[in-house]
């Protein structure tokens, strides 16, 4: 980021100041600029793209692709395809991963220039409700603003009693750095981030153990969608301890000695590395929000209305810092809303759902109403679950554990929620989201011609199970 201007003794002014250059922040900055606003974007790291692009979504997908190739090759040995045991050049894999993120980061830098956005690299903090002070390498720079969009994101939650200074205790950023392949890796937290990293390191040869506090992996997701993943990784991984928590991690000369407590707690075990993936904390308390009069809650979230406004009308908040779920696609949509409202448009965030995807193997994805929620809220629904064992496409991939589930309103058949598990399931959820947003019902989906033989067909088949017109299965009346 060579665009950093020399420190300006006087104050720089922004019509719209965006604090944070992640997927929410840069989207907001770009949209505001496109709507004719003069924009200053403040980002503390040298490259734009935030966690998602640099140490999150994108690098993890690159590594997961490596893992997928390894798994597929490995699994097809039994079907007559034999490459022998793969060897890894970790440096080359790492370099490839970095080239992917660099391509995207460079692209963003170009987009900033094309839009004539002023980019300041440094850590910004509010000093008043119309001023941000940015600490840069060259000194402090004050930026005054008419309107501001806070997009300062979140950070991995640390557990204070753990030896966080030990290089063998990782967070997700450390895991993505791909410095080494530990023999024995413990993953604390059976959520999406932990399980994605487990997938990568398992493929690269680590012996994986997962410990999760709740009674299922990926808590919050319906159990039937998680079960195929759970069955598969139970065989692949050394241990999956549910309803169990880590009580202590001690430095040991051979590794990190971890003690457990709970339902299936083992004796203390020594691991070569421990990845703590127990969630993320919003950065609301790190930006001087109180000096701008912006309310920040206990955890660090900033409450906003449908137009992304905070309690201070000319200051907006978007993305992780504005509430769960902490997902890039939520942040970018919110970023557009904030930019449009700042430019005087009557935008609002009224999406009906934000889809979730775990890029595990098999992938798990869901959107809209979950069965758990329906039961809690007493919402009646019709449900259909199409087994991928009846999908030719899935079988020809050598996989049969997947399923596609639809929840519909009882009277109208309108789609309320959907979920899939299986290879590439994440690519299928967008259709379900579109169906929900368009107010489609099961009949609409069933009457839409889906290409054969594709995994996307399973969504139509599940819909036909709701309407009773399915022919690819026999369902006794």
């Amino acid at each position, binding site marked *: 980021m060579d665009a950093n201007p020399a420190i300006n003794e006087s104050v720089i002014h922004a019509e719209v100041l965006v604090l944070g250059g992640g997927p929410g922040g840069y989207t907001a900055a770009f949209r505001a600029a496109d709507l004719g606003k003069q924009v200053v974007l403040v980002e503390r790291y040298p490259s734009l793209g935030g966690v998602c692009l640099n140490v999150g979504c994108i690098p993890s997908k690159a590594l997961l692709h490596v893992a997928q190739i390894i798994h597929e090759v490995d699994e097809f040995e039994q079907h007559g395809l034999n490459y022998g045991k793969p060897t890894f050049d970790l440096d080359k894999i790492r370099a490839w991963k970095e080239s992917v993120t660099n391509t995207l980061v460079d692209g963003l830098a170009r987009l900033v220039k094309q839009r004539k956005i002023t980019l300041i690299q440094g850590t910004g903090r509010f000093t008043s*409700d119309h001023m941000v002070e940015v600490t840069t390498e060259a000194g402090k720079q004050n930026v005054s603003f008419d309107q501001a969009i806070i997009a300062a994101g979140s950070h991995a939650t640390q557990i204070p009693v753990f030896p966080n200074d030990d290089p063998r205790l990782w967070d997700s950023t450390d895991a993505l750095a791909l410095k080494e392949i530990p023999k024995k890796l413990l993953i604390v937290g059976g959520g999406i981030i932990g399980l994605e990293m487990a997938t990568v390191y398992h493929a690269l040869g680590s012996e994986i153990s997962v410990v999760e506090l709740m009674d299922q992996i990926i808590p919050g997701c319906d159990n039937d969608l998680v079960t195929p993943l759970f069955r598969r990784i139970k065989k692949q991984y050394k241990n999956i301890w549910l309803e169990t928590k880590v009580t202590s991690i001690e430095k040991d000369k051979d590794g990190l000695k971890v003690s457990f407590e709970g339902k299936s707690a083992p004796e203390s075990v020594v691991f070569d590395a421990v990845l703590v993936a127990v969630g993320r904390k919003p950065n609301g308390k790190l930006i001087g929000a109180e000096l701008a*009069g912006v*309310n920040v809650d206990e955890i660090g979230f900033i409450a906003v209305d449908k*137009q992304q406004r905070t309690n201070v009308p000319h200051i907006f908040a978007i993305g992780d810092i504005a509430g769960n779920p902490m997902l890039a696609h939520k942040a970018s949509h919110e970023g557009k809303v904030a930019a449009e409202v700042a430019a005087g448009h009557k935008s609002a*965030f009224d999406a009906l*759902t934000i889809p979730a995807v775990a890029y595990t193997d098999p992938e798990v994805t869901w959107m809209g109403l979950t069965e758990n929620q329906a039961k809690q809220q*007493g919402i009646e629904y019709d449900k259909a679950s199409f087994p991928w064992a009846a999908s030719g496409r899935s079988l020809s991939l050598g996989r049969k554990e997947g399923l596609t589930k639809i929840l519909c309103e009882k009277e109208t058949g309108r789609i309320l929620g959907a979920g899939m598990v299986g290879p590439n399931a994440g690519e299928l959820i967008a259709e379900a989201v579109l169906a929900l947003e368009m107010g489609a019902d099961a009949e609409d989906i069933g009457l839409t011609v889906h290409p054969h033989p594709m995994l996307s067909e399973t969504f139509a088949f599940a819909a036909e199970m709701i309407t009773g017109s399915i022919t690819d299965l026999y369902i006794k009346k």
Partner: protein
Amino acid sequence: MASLIEIKVPDVGNVADIDVVDVLVKPGDEVKLEQTLAVLETDKASMDLPASAAGKVQEVFIKPGDKVSEGTLIATVLAATEESGAAKQEEAPAQQAPVQQEVATAPVEKAPEPTSQSPVAAPEPLPETPARSEPGKAAHATPAVRLFARELGVDIHKITNGSGRKGRILKDDVKNFVKKVMTEGVAQSGTGIPAMPSVDFSQFGEVEERKLSKIKRLTGQNLSRVWLNLPMVTYHDEVDITEMEAFRNALNAEKSKDDVKITGLIFIIKALIAAVEQFPQFNASLSADGENLILKKYLNIGIAVDTPNGLVVPVLRNVKHKGINELSAELAETSNRARLGKLMPAEMQGGCITISSLGGIGGTAFTPIVNAPEVAILGVTRAKMQPVWNGKEFVPRLMLPLDLTYDHRVIDGVEGAKFMAAIKQYLGDIRRLLL
């Protein structure tokens, strides 16, 4: 076997959004067949909703203030005496999901502008995360249409019936909604007429405020609309009904005590039918754009009936070939039900021309208001014995005053006078009705 019977709103004519005024039963009540379960009120009438089955009320699904339409579930009734069955049914989960109102986020625009350097606490706590719409309650509209509605400031939930497939709200529906609101807004301000000032009458003495019945309120709106939209002329005349009355009295004398007596109104109806057949432009309506006249090949006659709840106009159907006795029986029966508030909305639709009779009370003349989109209304006041000059001398004749109000856009003055003359001829010599 105990059987659970669902009681629904019956076919009440093409009317949606009927108000529930009162609910007279609660779960556990024993109801008899035809017992009134609830009182409903449309813009034209209030009606009792009878139980279509006898038994014990299990669940009641409506409450006063609800809106219902044909097919809405009112209550479930257990049509048997078995207690075990009743207990079992109670465990059945309620059909409805708990009603949740979409809570609008507090408008932050109202938060005070914080002054520099002094952080202020927000006056009201905002929700932790943005309020997301719930899929089950979402409007049936695509994201782009929802955006369009938001830009125009339309609450899309207020658009109840989309014109797209399965009721999807389309962009045009949003536009039409806006148009409707705009035009209604104009009408409410009375096409530029200044609104009536509000007066505090209590400064002059004791007052009591009583809510107008829905029928009165809606009749009032309709009358104002007609008054402002129709150029109306009222034409007055008198007709000699001495012979007609003599014939009517003779007929009634033949009837036994329990028979329906024939009233003068029936002859007026017969005369009106004959006159309308002679002048078809009186059985017509203007098209909404005012470009065409819609002539009707059927003839239904509305009769204004005074009821405790307000004025209603039941419609006698297909009167062309009905005889005096048949019309008498029908009119007696319909008026009776109108007074009891038991008319169905369908029975008040489809009128072609209306008679408003004050004959039983008095008066010499009045100016009735046309029941638009009809084009004419015939007013009747009390007949009176009067001295009439027959060319040689004054003779006592029973004279009936008639008032014909017509929509002058459709009916010319001469046509109005000729129409009245025809009615007079028929009533003056009822043998002409045979012609």
